[in-house]
């Protein structure tokens, strides 16, 4: 017989289990009655449509801060309404409340007809068309560009290829060095035969990527999360939050095959943004060509894009005005946690205001 810290009283455990079952049943009943609504919660209008890409412009919520418009470039994976999930969890609202004029690049849902889209199409043509639209509409030479996650990597590339279009660059939870020791996703992806995968599938199913993201922490992101529902079974607002998050997590667009292959090879497998030799649309991408001010925001507990993957942006570019900001949280918490709601918009707005 070995010593143990297990001090469970069987009768109490029985009661706890019964209560857990009751609460889970209650949570399921409640969830069945909740509608999570559309994509995002803030007023917006379509400013431009380019293929399946839509540029949204958000309605002003405060007096104009007098800054150039901020164009947000989201990732190709997952949907951008994570940035505007609900009124009290919205980075976009936080920015609007500080008088910023906010645009969002929404890549849409690629289908079979998009399987040949390449990074050139996304980084140069579509993002370029969005930025050009804003420049023309406002009569300005350059916009403020905020890239999120993979969208940050794409924004760095755009700024390197078109430095005259970007006045200030903000990157959020953005992978730059894909070969750091903590980057589990990269370790897996490096072994992937992406050529055969894309040849066989055409577009890469979003659900497959999603499964890979969940597999990074399979117990915390499944068993622990779902057992935690018992704790919020009587809290309808918390259940609504849960369902919105759950919907977002599983709302994964398929990835245009050619662009996916290019991104996996160039960034994940060959790490060319850091090592050099990255080419998009036949043009060399030299990060030293990015000379505008840079604010690099990363999350200390990010399991998807570890800080070590984001920090190397310092020193990689030609910018003499580089600021790093470490958020105490994870890859999702940086958008939706309570602490982020005030801190992130304030940090971004102040930094832009000072430039």
């Amino acid at each position, binding site marked *: *017989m*070995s*010593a*143990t*810290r*297990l*001090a*469970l*009283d*069987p009768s*109490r*455990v029985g009661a*706890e*289990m019964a209560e*857990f*079952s009751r609460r*889970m049943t209650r*949570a*399921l009943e409640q*969830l*069945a009655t909740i509608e999570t609504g559309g994509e995002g919660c803030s007023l917006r209008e379509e400013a431009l449509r380019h293929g399946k890409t839509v540029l949204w412009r958000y309605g002003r919520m405060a007096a104009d801060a007098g800054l150039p418009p901020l164009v947000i470039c989201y990732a190709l994976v997952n949907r951008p309404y994570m940035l505007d999930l609900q009124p009290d969890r919205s980075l976009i609202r936080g920015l609007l409340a500080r008088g910023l004029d906010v645009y969002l690049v929404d890549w849409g849902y690629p289908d079979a007809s998009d399987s040949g889209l390449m990074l050139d199409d996304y980084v140069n043509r579509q993002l370029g068309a969005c930025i050009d639209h804003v420049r023309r509409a406002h009569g300005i030479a350059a916009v403020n560009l905020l890239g999120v996650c993979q969208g940050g990597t794409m924004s760095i590339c755009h700024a390197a290829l078109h430095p005259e279009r970007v006045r200030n660059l903000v990157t959020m939870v953005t992978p730059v060095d894909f070969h750091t020791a903590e980057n*589990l996703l990269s*370790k*897996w992806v*490096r*072994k*992937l*035969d992406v050529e*055969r*995968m894309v*040849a*066989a*599938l055409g577009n890469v*199913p979003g*659900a*497959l990527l*999603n*499964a*890979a993201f*969940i*597999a*990074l*922490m*399979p*117990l*915390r992101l*499944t*068993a*622990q999360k*779902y*057992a935690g*529902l018992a704790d919020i079974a009587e809290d309808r607002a918390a259940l609504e939050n849960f369902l919105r998050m*759950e*919907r977002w*997590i*599983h*709302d994964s667009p398929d990835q245009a095959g050619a662009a996916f292959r290019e991104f996996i090879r160039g960034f994940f497998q060959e790490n060319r943004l850091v090592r050099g030799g990255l080419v998009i649309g036949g043009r060399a991408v030299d990060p030293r060509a990015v000379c505008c001010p840079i604010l690099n925001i990363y999350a200390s507990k990010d399991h998807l894009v570890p800080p070590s993957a984001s920090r190397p942006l310092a020193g990689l570019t030609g910018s003499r005005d580089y600021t790093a900001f470490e958020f105490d949280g994870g890859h999702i918490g940086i958008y939706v946690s309570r602490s982020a709601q005030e801190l992130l918009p304030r940090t971004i707005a102040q930094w832009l205001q000072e430039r």
Partner: protein
Amino acid sequence: MLTDQSRGSAAFLQRTLADYAQGYAGLVAALWGPMQSGKPDVSGLREMLVEPYRRLFTPPFLPVPPAAANVGAGAGPAFLRWQGAARRFAGVTSAIAVDASRRFAAALGQTGPDAPPITTLAELHALWIDCGEAAYAEAAHGDDFAAAQAELLAALVELRAAAP
């Protein structure tokens, strides 16, 4: 074939929640007998807890294998490759489950100020998760895991190409 297309639907969520609630209950069931004794032998729990861990480490994109009879003649080699890859990956996840179970039993066996008594199921479940994630993280960062996972995916892709 590569993924469950119902993910994100209400029915999927209900199935998922029911499944994990069952897993939670399963932990209690495994411990029920030892608990009744008043002096549980935690080292004896190890084997019982391997299977629940193994289930959670199995990737959600792993489909149910088609019956060999349903695979066309041209897809035979792809099917064999898939079988081999699935077997290899199952071996990897089983090893992680054994390690997780060992860690869990060891954690339950700890005493002292850093290991307060566990008096609720919620605390037990949290420890179960911590031990599982620790074992998984260590293995998942290794070359064997990445290679087995990549081979599994490549075999699935080949099977799909051969028998769409």
